């Protein structure tokens, strides 16, 4: 029974949220906040795989997000809506309901392939030099999108709202919220299972000591490849969701600022802590939203809070620990056999 506690609790939460959104109990603003929290959770947990579990320093997460966002949006607009760019829909708009997850995954796959740009140099490069490579990839992606005029260039790309609407016409559900919740669950489950598996522990071995890991027959190159591609693929999915929540994307959204925001979430939550990343994604999104009335001063107050946090608790909320380590009683409710290490 215990094995299914977390899954069923999350399922219950999702059903409640969707029902609340469907029954108009929570207004559109709250729904958007919830969706942003979900997207930020995907971004922070996937970046934590690189920065926390593998111990590399990636500062270009927004680049992968941009790839996913653009691939998913272009496919959806092309297939399911009539737009100025691509003309009439290629498929019937009603099939959007079934094919949306496919396009989302294709966006993730595309982002994972771009992740190769980082993964391959990471075989030879470490630390600060790899940080530059991730930074360069972020700029390359942003700059490439700006130069492709067919998808709007620097002006941005829109029309995703029509896809969401046509999904709503076939089945009257808040589809954007549904898919955000599904993907958040899938991401957390994937990363949790991955880092707790024998295979995935190779990533932690790479962080602790790459040479020793190599000697102990961990295929470090393969581990890096898997970690970078998984992380960037998940970021791509988050990007696809982001595009459909907002309905408009432009390359200016996916700058180093966005990457920094995700980076902050990871370090706030604590490196190598999945529950920390989730908590900090929720907390930071809410804090940023609460401080919205402060306007510009928001970006002074929030970094200041983070610096204070770094001074007094440099390892973040939960550095290298999970919620179940801090509150051992929680373990009674969740699968005990998976955390024997």
């Amino acid at each position, binding site marked *: 029974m215990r094995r299914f506690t977390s899954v069923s609790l999350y399922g219950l939460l999702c059903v409640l949220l969707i029902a609340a959104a469907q029954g108009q109990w929570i207004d559109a603003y709250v729904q958007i906040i919830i969706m942003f929290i979900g997207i930020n959770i995907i971004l922070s947990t996937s970046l934590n795989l690189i920065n926390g579990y593998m111990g590399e320093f990636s500062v270009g997460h927004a680049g992968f997000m941009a790839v996913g966002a653009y691939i998913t949006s272009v496919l959806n607009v092309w297939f399911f809506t009539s737009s100025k760019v691509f003309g009439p829909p290629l498929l019937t708009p009603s099939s959007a309901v079934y094919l949306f997850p496919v396009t989302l995954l294709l966006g993730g796959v595309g982002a994972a392939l771009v992740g190769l740009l980082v993964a391959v140099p990471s075989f030879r490069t470490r630390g600060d030099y790899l940080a530059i490579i991730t930074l*360069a990839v972020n700029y390359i992606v942003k700059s490439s999108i700006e130069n492709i005029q067919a998808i709007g260039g620097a002006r941005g790309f829109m029309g995703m709202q029509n896809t969401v609407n046509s999904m709503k016409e076939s089945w009257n559900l808040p589809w954007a919220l549904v898919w955000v919740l599904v993907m958040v669950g899938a991401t957390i489950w994937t990363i949790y299972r991955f880092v707790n598996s024998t295979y995935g522990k190779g990533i932690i071995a790479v962080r602790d000591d790459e040479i020793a890991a190599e000697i102990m027959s961990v295929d470090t190159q393969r581990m890096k490849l898997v970690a970078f591609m998984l992380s960037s693929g998940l970021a791509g999915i988050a990007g696809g969701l982001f595009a459909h929540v907002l309905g408009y994307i432009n390359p200016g959204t996916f700058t180093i600022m966005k990457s920094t925001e995700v980076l902050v979430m990871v*370090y706030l939550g604590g490196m190598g802590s999945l529950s920390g990343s989730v908590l900090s994604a929720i907390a930071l999104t809410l804090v940023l939203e609460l401080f919205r009335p402060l306007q510009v001063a928001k970006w002074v107050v929030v970094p200041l809070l983070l*610096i204070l946090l770094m001074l007094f608790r*440099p390892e973040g909320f939960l550095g290298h620990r999970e919620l179940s380590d801090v509150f051992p009683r929680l373990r009674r409710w969740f699968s005990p056999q998976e955390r024997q290490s």
Partner: protein
Amino acid sequence: MDLQSFFQNLLNALQWGSFYALIALGYTLVYGVLLLINFAHGDIFMVGAYISFFIATFFLGQYAFALPMALPNTAIFAITLVLTMMITAGFGVTLERVAYRPLRRKGASRLYVVITALMCGLILENGNLALLGANRRSFPELLNNTVHVIGGVSVSSVKILVIITTIVVFLLLETIVRKTKLGMAMRAISYDRMAVPLMGIPVDTVIVFTFALGSSMAALAGVLFATAYPVLEPYMGALVGWKAFIAAVLGGIGEIRGAFVGGFLLGFVEIFVAAFFPSTLRDLIAFSILLIFLSVKPTGIFGVARTTKI
């Protein structure tokens, strides 16, 4: 491209590269000593430019309390330069004192210090935006910029000033780091953090000196940048800062020579890409070259791979 426009671009590239080199220097100095990427450095450059703006306008008598006598513009430029470098150096040291040193004392992981640096940069940018508003400020013209045309290539005096200053600064810093006792201490700290305090070297003093040196170089770049491109805005340091960081890494971070060569190289790439291709492709090609270069030679031009003992 004919010879004439080649030399014109070469000159532009030298000037553009000079700014990158001067800022990259601050990254590389701090990294060489502390192994810390000081991401706030681009914004220290911005702060330097703003400080110089206020000093220059003060001496030009644009505020309520003017000086009794009017100074010649060149004198104002010299005073502005020196004062800005001093104040910005103090600023950089304060930043180190307030934000980085407590973390270092605690023995926090390097990456947390990097995050703190990123946050400091954000505070500087947005604090400036909140305090001074979003309107751009134009830097007063202190040096009369004479343009000589030599063989069809227009050579402005500001460009020459920027390039010569950068080369002088490079020679000066090489001397400081290679020849003086303080420079030896700086190299020693990066070589072995544990042994240096045991030898009676005051680590904190050396670090303060490093920050002062790096920040004053950023201030120098700020004043020169504001003279060459007289528009100031709060985010001017962000992109230039990141690119200067890339220049530092390209040259091999931690190496003074590397920062200069990397800075000039990035300047050349950017200017010549813009000369041959549409200028929107500038960032794309510049960063692609960087990516390929680092994939082939992961430690930069002058960087030496640190060997690990097993």
